[in-house]
């Protein structure tokens, strides 16, 4: 539920910045959609006029293989004086080469968050001072948190040539053994414990 303060902020933002649209369904804080070409302008106003001095996080999102627009980047910003959050969502206009403006010029703290979003989801941030991978190694060819990437991974060369020369190791898809394991939200431990999606491998499941 949005509190009164949040609702008030949301209303104010929608009125003061006409290019901004409401993001329906937010369960906690004021939440807005901003077109990519206005994002920097809006962000600057958020910081300088509305007092959102702190960036809390930035994440990339893949809304599904068939969704269009497919990718967006989401920033969470905080106002120290009024104790308010706002969530800013920017859809990338191009599905094939998703790109949104970087918020590093406004909040320097966005730097590593945006690198992570770029690394794992593959949203590029235009104007980022140092857009390199941060989690996976530099030569990794995929963006593993995209919806069409398998959890187990795919076979690619191991990043270090020395290690390969000595051991012949490869980056291999991980064995799933009945996974991925998910926890249900049952009431007893028995039903909420993690269980494998695929139960075929169990001994007591005789294969036909």
């Amino acid at each position, binding site marked *: 539920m949005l509190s009164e303060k949040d609702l008030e902020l949301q209303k104010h933002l929608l009125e003061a910045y006409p290019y901004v649209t409401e993001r329906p369904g937010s369960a906690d804080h004021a939440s807005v959609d901003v077109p990519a070409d206005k994002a920097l302008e809006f962000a600057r106003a958020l910081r300088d006029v509305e007092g959102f001095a702190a960036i809390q996080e930035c994440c990339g999102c893949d809304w599904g293989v068939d969704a269009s627009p497919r990718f967006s980047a989401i920033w969470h910003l905080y106002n120290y004086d009024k104790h308010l959050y706002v969530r800013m969502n920017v859809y990338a206009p191009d599905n094939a080469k998703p790109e949104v403006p970087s918020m590093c010029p406004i909040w320097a703290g966005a730097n590593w968050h945006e690198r992570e979003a770029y690394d794992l989801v593959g949203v590029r941030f235009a104007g980022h001072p140092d857009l390199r991978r941060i*989690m*996976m*190694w530099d030569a990794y060819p*995929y963006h*593993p948190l995209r919806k069409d*990437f*398998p*959890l*187990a*991974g*795919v076979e690619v060369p*191991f*990043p*270090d040539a*020395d*290690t390969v020369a*000595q*051991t*012949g*190791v490869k*980056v*291999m*898809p*991980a*064995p*799933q*053994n009945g*996974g*991925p*394991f998910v926890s249900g939200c049952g009431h007893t431990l028995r039903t909420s414990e993690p269980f494998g999606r695929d139960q075929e491998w169990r001994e007591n499941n005789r294969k036909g």
Partner: protein
Amino acid sequence: MSSTNTEVGYNSKIEGGVVVTKLDAALNWIRSHSVWPMPMGLACCAIEFMSASCSRFDISRFGMEVTRFSPRQADCMIVAGTVTYKMAEAVRRIYDQMAEPKWVVAMGACASSGGMFRSYSTLQGVDRIIPVDVYISGCPTRPEALFDGLMALQEMIAKEPALRLLKRERPVKPLYFS
């Protein structure tokens, strides 16, 4: 390992104090009781290693408390934690920097087999890049289990043909997974 042999006597005054043993056994006895571990702490299991090395569990009771954080000064690498592909390169390099004789302990499910991280980023067991001598189960491994594993390692060391290996014939240990 030893026996007091009263027949070896070149000086009757110290006769009873002479101990006869094999050089191998003596070397191994020394080695196995002065294991200098290097914690390759990569994730939560490393926290358990810390508790194992502190006063409550006290790893020094078993003669392996001289934890060194430099591979040059250590002879037992304890891989404690999740080995990602990105980190695997560093683990192998550090292993290569350790002087022989050296041993490797895979501490916990992650280091032994990838553990619960069956995903694109995690090496499925550190034995794919370095030869592991002892695997310890647990997520995380309890300190008692770690000691059990390290004592198993001590037993292994005690059985090594130390002299033969000293003469630089030490074979490159095979990878158990390849």
